[in-house]
């Protein structure tokens, strides 16, 4: 009754799609080993760093409550916030450089999302088995065995996640006290909240969200293409060599791809690399490992899927030619900016003055006349000692020849504190000009010539 030309011309499609489950197959190979090395390196660093002690305190501690950041021998104060900005800029440029050269290697090997997903996948395999077993388990109805496997997996995930949350909070509140507090159930409400929050974030992101974070939440996936060019190394499928693919190996006219779909099965974001460069590709090279294994088995040369550049594929460049194209303007500029920023930050940190001084002239009184016709001004010296040792500092005044500090020119200041010190400066009558005179306060340590800071101020002589 319905002729083809009378079929509905329109359809209603759902705009919100449920996530399709991805079961990445475990893979061994050069890049998988590299990724595991990165996992070990980053996690040893992350879990271990808070436990290192130095100068009788935690070596790395971001003490938000007292607004001091301890980084081994360095103590940063809110005034040093510029270094955080510089560090972020350097990180951003580092990412630009790496991306321009080798695409999303950060994503594939060092990004926390990838690293924790790798750990969580490893746990998943211990409880639920390999890819096919996991698919089968998810399809079968609930049994005691399935409950045990799934329950065990989530319990293990939960433990790792809680440990991660605890470690993270340990960077902001001393980790040793934190562990005592947990052991004695005496954890404060905010610490409890943040441990649970970061634990939950780890569990949710690495256990459930996985590639969804990379595809829909991560901004880097959206703008990394701006740093790509045709000489950027990317994970690519050599279509010229592989196509037309054929399941029957060696069929006449067929390429090297035997359409085994291993590259699709191992992909953590569930894409088919043979369709070309896609924004979902995190450059983890799991498909490279998989395809190389298959090529070995079918006695074909490796590298049907490999790290290559678009230009290399199009023109069939050799490795040496690809390397030579590395030194293109974009890469050179990124490197130069990175080197300049790095050097500027390092030298600025090295030359950082550990003493800081603010001079506030008392506004209540102008210069006043005291005994013997001397003129006196009162200042409040705001002294900051960012070092971890107490200091004894001497105040001197320059600018007017016989200006001198009255009643003691020594200040004692405790380790890592600020302190306001009222100081009177006196000059004999007749010196200087009536009105405002420039003077400069200098705070200096007798022990170390490097500990020295000078700040200008005004000395007012009444008319």
């Amino acid at each position, binding site marked *: 009754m319905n002729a083809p030309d009378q079929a509905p011309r*329109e359809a209603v499609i759902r*705009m919100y799609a449920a996530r399709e489950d991805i079961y990445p197959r475990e893979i061994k190979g050069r890049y998988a080993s590299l990724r595991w090395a990165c996992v070990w390196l980053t996690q040893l660093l992350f879990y271990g760093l808070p436990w290192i002690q130095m100068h009788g305190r935690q070596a790395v501690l971001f003490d938000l409550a007292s607004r001091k950041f301890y980084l081994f021998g360095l103590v940063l104060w809110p005034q040093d916030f510029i270094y955080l900005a510089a560090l972020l800029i350097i990180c951003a440029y580092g990412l630009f450089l790496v991306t321009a050269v080798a695409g999303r290697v950060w994503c594939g090997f060092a990004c926390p999302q990838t690293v924790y997903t790798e750990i969580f996948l490893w746990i998943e395999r211990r409880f639920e088995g390999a890819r096919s077993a996991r698919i089968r388990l998810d399809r079968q109805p609930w049994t005691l065995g399935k409950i045990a496997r799934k329950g065990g997996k989530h319990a293990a995930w939960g433990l790792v996640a809680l440990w991660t949350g605890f470690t993270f909070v340990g960077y902001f509140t001393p980790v040793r006290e934190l562990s005592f507090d947990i052991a004695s159930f005496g954890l404060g409400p905010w610490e409890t909240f943040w441990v649970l929050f970061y634990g939950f974030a780890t569990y949710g992101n690495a256990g459930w969200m996985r590639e969804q974070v990379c595809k829909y939440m991560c901004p880097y996936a959206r703008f990394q293409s701006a740093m790509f060019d045709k000489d950027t190394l990317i994970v690519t499928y050599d279509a010229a060599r592989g196509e037309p693919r054929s399941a029957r190996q060696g069929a006449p006219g067929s390429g090297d791809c035997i359409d085994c779909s291993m590259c699709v099965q191992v992909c953590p974001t569930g894409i088919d690399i043979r369709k070309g460069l896609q924004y979902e590709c995190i450059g983890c090279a799991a498909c490279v490992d998989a395809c190389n294994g298959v090529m070995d088995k079918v006695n074909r040369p490796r590298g049907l899927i490999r790290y290559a550049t678009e230009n290399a594929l199009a023109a069939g460049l050799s490795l040496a030619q690809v390397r030579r194209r590395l030194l293109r303007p974009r890469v050179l500029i990124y490197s130069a900016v990175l080197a300049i920023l790095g050097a500027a930050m390092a030298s600025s940190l090295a030359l950082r003055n550990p003493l800081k001084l603010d001079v506030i002239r008392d506004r209540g009184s102008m210069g006043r006349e005291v005994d013997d016709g001397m003129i006196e001004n009162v200042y409040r010296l705001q002294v900051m000692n960012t070092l971890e040792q107490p200091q004894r500092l001497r105040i001197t005044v320059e600018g007017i020849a016989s200006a001198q500090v009255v009643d003691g020119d020594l200040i004692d200041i405790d380790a890592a504190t600020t*302190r306001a010190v009222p100081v009177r400066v006196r000059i004999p009558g007749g010196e200087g000009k009536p009105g405002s005179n420039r003077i400069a306060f200098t705070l200096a340590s007798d022990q170390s010539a490097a500990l020295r800071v000078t700040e200008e101020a005004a000395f007012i002589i009444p008319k």
Partner: protein
Amino acid sequence: MADFFNEFWHWYVAVITVLSILGCGILLWSQSSYRVKLRADGTPEQTTGHVWDEDLTELNTPMPRWWIVLFWLTIVFGFGYLALYPGLGSYAGRLGWHSTGEYQAELKQARLDFGPVFAKYAGQDLKVVAADPQAHAIGERLFLNYCAQCHGSDARGSKGFPNLQDRDWLHGGEPAAIKQTILHGRVGNMPPMGAALGTDKDIESVAHYVRSLSGLTADPIKVSFGKPKFAACAACHGAEGKGNPALGAPNLADKTWLYGGSAETVMETIRKGRTNTMPAFGEFLGEEKVHVLAAYVWSLSNAPAQQPIVTAQAK
């Protein structure tokens, strides 16, 4: 004052807020499905139909469902928040939260935190408190915050504001008297004496006599004329001009001058009088803080030799 001048604005804000949130929900719901053209083979079109730069087309890719669920949760959260906290016009919210209440709670917490520190000193004698290094550091900070504006960071005052480092006290320099001064304030009042003394000449003579009391240079003839006239001043400053702490009348026989000791300044003081006020801090700081502060102020003029510049630091 009410949040709004009349009931209308409360409803205006509340209705707009609720309708906006509902509007977001309607938008989400209405966009959950999409009508697309069918291709020749009967399957739905995969692109939105827009083409740029000759061959760029936009894929009709669905959003992940969890993302949309988050939007719905946000709407639920929004209504929950508006029910609990103020946000809907002048509706106060079920929890009765108020910024003033939060401030009061923080204040209460601060009193709990710092109360014991001050309570420790409250029972001690002021001279004992003055000798305590921690109390000294606290006192120094209190002084820099509340007293230095008038008396100077070094407590040496300036014209019209007494020097607290010397041993000259208008109302008495005993620790208890200083505490009394800080708690309740003082009003110093020197009435204008010009009319009572007579002519400008008479005033000048009295000024010279007053200067002579503290050994400053003065014209002996004017001094001799001024001396009998000083009887009018003696009621407060005493026959010898040594002042009276009970009245706050300054000692005129020392070299300390609140407004200056030049003949012109003394004449102006006599002619026009002086009124000076030390505000009361008892209400504002509370008795326990004033206790520590008074000990610090007393120690300024009764300090052991090594103080005050080099002092211990409070942790």
